[in-house]
């Protein structure tokens, strides 16, 4: 009973968001959605299957630019763009990953590093096609005849795609494919003994993760309306890894918590620094970048050392403790009656 009302109020809040708040909040909400989808993907590759990937931002870039080009040159409607961007990113991922699927994990990690740099290089040197360093301005996303020219309107696309991505991920791990991924992470040698074709499933895990990244990139292109190579640097790849670690590897709720947390932390830091502005002068803003780096790095380290299962585990423990105290107090109530 209580559960359903929580879901309903959540749905109402999410749907009412564009009317109830400022453009900035909607902007942040869209950004959270994008990061959730991307983190879900990386979690499949790295969290569930244990393949370290440093190229996630590169695949997001592939998705973003694919959407930009499809939309600008052929006016492809946004939903088709999203799908095609995912496919494109997946293919690119497959190409770069191919040589290393048969090798040990660390080689794949280095291959992903190579992929990250090569993708960004290609985008920067792509001249008139990719817009080079200045990138591309994305034309207004279309659905049917409707132009989604503001963040408020595009928000609903982001919301729908994010919910869909969460739902797909959740069901993925009930299937044979999903269970194979987990088996590979745990003990890949044993997995092979059980008949799991390691190379095939590694490739699948990697490419599905890249697909999600492409979709996320497509959403990003749709609501930022501009794509530039520097938005998708190695730092962003590590950002997504941090989201996986902080939220909790191998957990869907973890991906969501991690992504939202990582997206909003800079805002909180900025807010905190601005509040102390009177004490320090505007220099406070100047240290935002450095503080952000320290906090991100610190979070990866702290969580891996102290709570490898991430915030989702922390949340689970708090919830369990709450349930215990609730049931013990209701026990007391019961005993009083009898």
């Amino acid at each position, binding site marked *: 009973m209580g*559960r359903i009302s*929580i*879901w309903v*109020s*959540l749905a109402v*809040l*999410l749907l009412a*968001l564009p009317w*109830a*708040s*400022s*453009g*900035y*909040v909607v*902007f*942040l909400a869209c*950004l959270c959605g994008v990061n959730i989808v991307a983190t879900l993907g990386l979690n499949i590759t790295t969290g569930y299957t244990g393949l370290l990937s440093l190229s996630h931002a590169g695949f997001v870039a592939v998705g973003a630019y694919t959407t930009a080009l499809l939309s600008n040159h052929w006016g492809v409607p946004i939903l088709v763009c999203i799908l095609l961007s995912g496919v494109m990113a997946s293919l690119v991922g497959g190409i770069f990953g191919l040589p290393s699927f048969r090798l040990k994990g660390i080689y794949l990690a280095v291959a992903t590093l190579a992929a990250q740099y090569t993708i960004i290089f290609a985008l*920067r040197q792509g001249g008139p096609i990719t817009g*080079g*360093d*200045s*990138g591309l*301005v994305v034309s207004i996303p279309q659905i049917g005849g409707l132009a989604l*020219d*503001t963040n408020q309107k595009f928000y609903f696309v982001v919301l729908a795609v994010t919910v869909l991505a969460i739902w797909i991920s*959740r069901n993925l791990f009930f299937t044979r494919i999903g269970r194979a991924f987990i088996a590979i992470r745990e003990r890949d040698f044993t997995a092979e003994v059980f008949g799991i074709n390691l190379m095939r499933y590694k490739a699948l895990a990697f490419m599905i993760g890249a697909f999600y990244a492409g979709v996320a990139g497509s959403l990003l292109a749709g609501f*930022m*309306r*501009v794509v*530039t190579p*520097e*938005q998708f640097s190695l730092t962003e790849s590590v950002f997504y890894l941090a989201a996986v670690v902080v939220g909790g590897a191998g957990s*869907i*709720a973890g991906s*969501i*918590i991690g992504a*939202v947390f990582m997206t*909003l932390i800079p805002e909180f830091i900025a807010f905190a620094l601005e509040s102390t502005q009177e004490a320090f002068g*505007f220099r406070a*803003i*100047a*240290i*935002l*970048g*450095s503080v952000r780096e320290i906090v991100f790095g610190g979070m990866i380290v702290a969580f891996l050392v102290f709570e490898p299962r991430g915030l*989702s585990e922390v*949340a*689970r423990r*708090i*919830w369990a403790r709450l349930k215990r105290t609730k049931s013990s107090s209701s026990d007391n109530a019961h005993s009083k009656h009898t």
Partner: protein
Amino acid sequence: MFSLKFSKRNLLGIVGAITLATITSSAALAQSKEPLTWSVNLSLTGPLAYSGELQAKGFEEFAEWVNQNGGIRGRKLTIITDDTQYKVAVSVANLKRAQSKATISFASGDGTPWVRAVSPENNQTHKILMSSGSFASDLVDAAKYPLHFVPGPNYTDQIIMLLEHIKKSHKGSAPARVAFIYSSTEFGRDPIQASKAHARQLGLEVVLDEETAFTAVDVSPVVVKMRGAQPDYTIFQGYATSVWPEVIRLAREYGLKSQFMGTIWAMDRGIIVKLGKAADGYTGVSPYTFKSTGSKDEVLSAIDALRRKNDPAYDGYPTIPYMQSWFSALMAKRAMEITIDAGKPITGENLAKALRDLKDWNTGGVFGVPVNIIGNRVPVGRIYKYDAGKNFEPVPISDWITVNK
């Protein structure tokens, strides 16, 4: 399995955000004699931090001056300053955040990527007057950037000024040999094609076209190339505080005699002084007057007074980034004064029109001559030469040049 705990957290977060947002948006509804709020986005960190800091100070002291003198037609000036970390996504987010706090009547950014990223939505929806520290050449396109005004001549204008000067002053019968060294960024690459074409048009010989990384570069290969090409003049474009000083130093060690030249962002006196003897004779373009000491002009003397008041060690040179901020702010202020006087509402379109209609505007000493705004910019500048013998005072070696393009 979904942990329900997570959804409760999300809920609290969203409720909190909505509450906060409602409060701020209702506050912004009350206007009339409200302060004018500007959003200033600068690279306070990252490779451009050096100029970013000076630019921030420029805006800060401009606001101090304006508010000391009754504000803009009685309305107080408030400036929201944010750090872009030289990242486009961050600067776009900063502008949105500023907009959620107050109605923004003017926005200034750190560079070309910011202008490009913000323009589409701004031109269509928000229509805020814009300026920036970018002097990119394609910003003269009034159709694409109707609301953005460049606070000086663009990079191509500046290099043309240098090339014309080379043509005039080059001694000897052989055509002058010119080298271009620039960074592989948009900032660097922007004017190169047009500049090379113009150079050839003038009969100058382009002997080197060298693109390098933006920072942390080993400049040895570049100088080796210079040694092979033997340019008489070497023009830098697209760097902040590194790479070009190292090229100068290494080239001098190699015994190369080329004359070094730069555009606005490669003219900083602080860096030249640090280079010492190697930088003697360095020549470049500055749109603005260099020194404020002893000025009788309205704005320049105000700058001088403020700088002396706030910085006991002030040496008379406000620095180019500082002046650039002042001029961008001055443009916005003038546009707002004209618009308010005409009884029109302060919108980007009205402000832009006010600027375009300006004729022979006396800028109070920032520029040495009255200026007009042509193609969304002020195509006026002067060539200065640093003289080691005069304690690196930038000596003007040309008149105030207006480029008509």
